[in-house]
């Protein structure tokens, strides 16, 4: 099957074939593309970026992201979790807001420096 690697802006077009002893990937310009193809076939994951609301002046919302990739099917549950969260003080960039999101061992970190 055909697949487009989303790891980097190169967007390599991958030809992926399931074989008896695993997965055969062609068209990847780097190793990460091969890993992507295998994960995409078994358990597709995504890193998610969004924002959470705050009560801090000048920052109605602050941007956040997962510090790794979470399974695709958990994205909507994750987004609901974020919508219930309110940040009530200034925190430095990279602060963990929520630990172990939906049992994935992945954390939510802030990505904006609140000056």
């Amino acid at each position, binding site marked *: 099957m055909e697949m487009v690697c989303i790891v980097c*802006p190169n967007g390599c077009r991958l030809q992926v074939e399931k074989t008896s002893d695993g997965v055969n990937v062609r068209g990847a310009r780097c190793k990460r593309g091969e890993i992507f193809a295998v994960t995409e076939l078994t358990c597709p994951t995504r890193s998610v*970026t969004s924002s959470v609301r705050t009560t801090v002046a000048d920052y109605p*919302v602050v941007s956040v992201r997962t510090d790794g990739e979470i399974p695709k099917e958990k994205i909507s549950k994750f987004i609901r979790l974020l919508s219930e969260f309110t940040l009530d003080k200034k925190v430095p960039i990279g602060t963990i807001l929520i630990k172990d999101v939906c049992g994935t061992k992945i954390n939510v970190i802030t*990505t904006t420096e609140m000056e």
Partner: protein
Amino acid sequence: MKYDIVVIGGGPAGLAAAIRASKSASVLLIEREARLGGILKQCIHDGFGVVRFGEKLSGPEYAHRFIKELRQTNVTVSTFSFVTNVCKDGCYKLTYVCRDGVRTAECDKIILATGCRERTRNGIFIQGDRCSGIYTAGSAQNLVNIMGVMPGRKAVILGSGDIGLIMARRLTLEGAQVIGVYEAKPTPSGLTRNIHQCLYDFNIPLHLSTTVTRVIGSNRLEQVEISRVDDKMRPIAGTESIVNCDTLVLAVGLIPENELANDLSVRVDPKTKGAFVDQNCHTLTDNVYACGNALHVNDLVDYVSESGETAGENACKPTRERKLVPVTTKGKFLYAVPQMLDVHSDVGGVITYFRASEELSKQQLTVTVGGKEIFSKRFAKLIPPEMERVVIDYSQADLSSEQIVMELKEW
């Protein structure tokens, strides 16, 4: 105050230019908004810095790395400041409005890092009512990611450029219904990975060769009329259909911001719509440099920073008389930057960016000087949305012929 260099714009290009220039010059950085970072502040999605840092950062994180570095320099930063006038009277004199009132600054050199602007409804002539609910993708992004406000609940997105695709995903995640992304061209404009991770992941349909031909709504947008277009992108009569929505997001292209460049009589390339420059980001107006998206619209911020550094680095060097030789393009180029070489300065590793004018496969880029080949590279595929970058070494070439040709042809 008198500075060696004034950098206008505190986005990725301006930050990189100011940091680099500060190593051997006094620098004033002027930024219109309250905070540095430019458009990166609102680009909270990840994918920034893959080339430069080998990491997938979000926009604010990418900007933060440069802002942190800038704080270690002696660059004077003036935020909330808008340049209203530039004139030349021996040196350059700038007038800018800031919280303290009207201020002036003098400098020997100016670096334009003013970024680009979005095309609007007027830029693409959409007929219809004058209702609310029509946003450019950037303003919708600002509302959601900075102000924390939803622009609407049921959105149609026109334009498949990266910002349009990213906003389709962003609005979906925030609970809006995105009915579809419509694109007048027969091929998508954004990066392929964004088509996949922003649209296909969320089952958002992409309609090619289709555009919005009318907006309908008494106060708020209620409907848009969609039409198929022919191969010249003209709407085909009889193919109209109505889509109910309360929001239209326009992601229909970016144009370098040239207002100050025009005041400085900087010559603009009709292909890039940014300044003509040599390999040092030096425009045809002496001592005025241009970089980043003000020079040509990039798809990767890494290259925006790179051109900022080129401008910053070279603006520090003492002024010498230039000898400019045009770089002629042959074949299916949309554009190539730099458009000329200053053969009196370093011609060693000339970073050259280019785009093909249409989707091409098996292309060979050849650079010749006076008919003699000095560089060639093969590309399996070239598409207009994806900019290419090559480094060309002209140092061994005999530039006295003044004939530099970049050619694209099939191999």
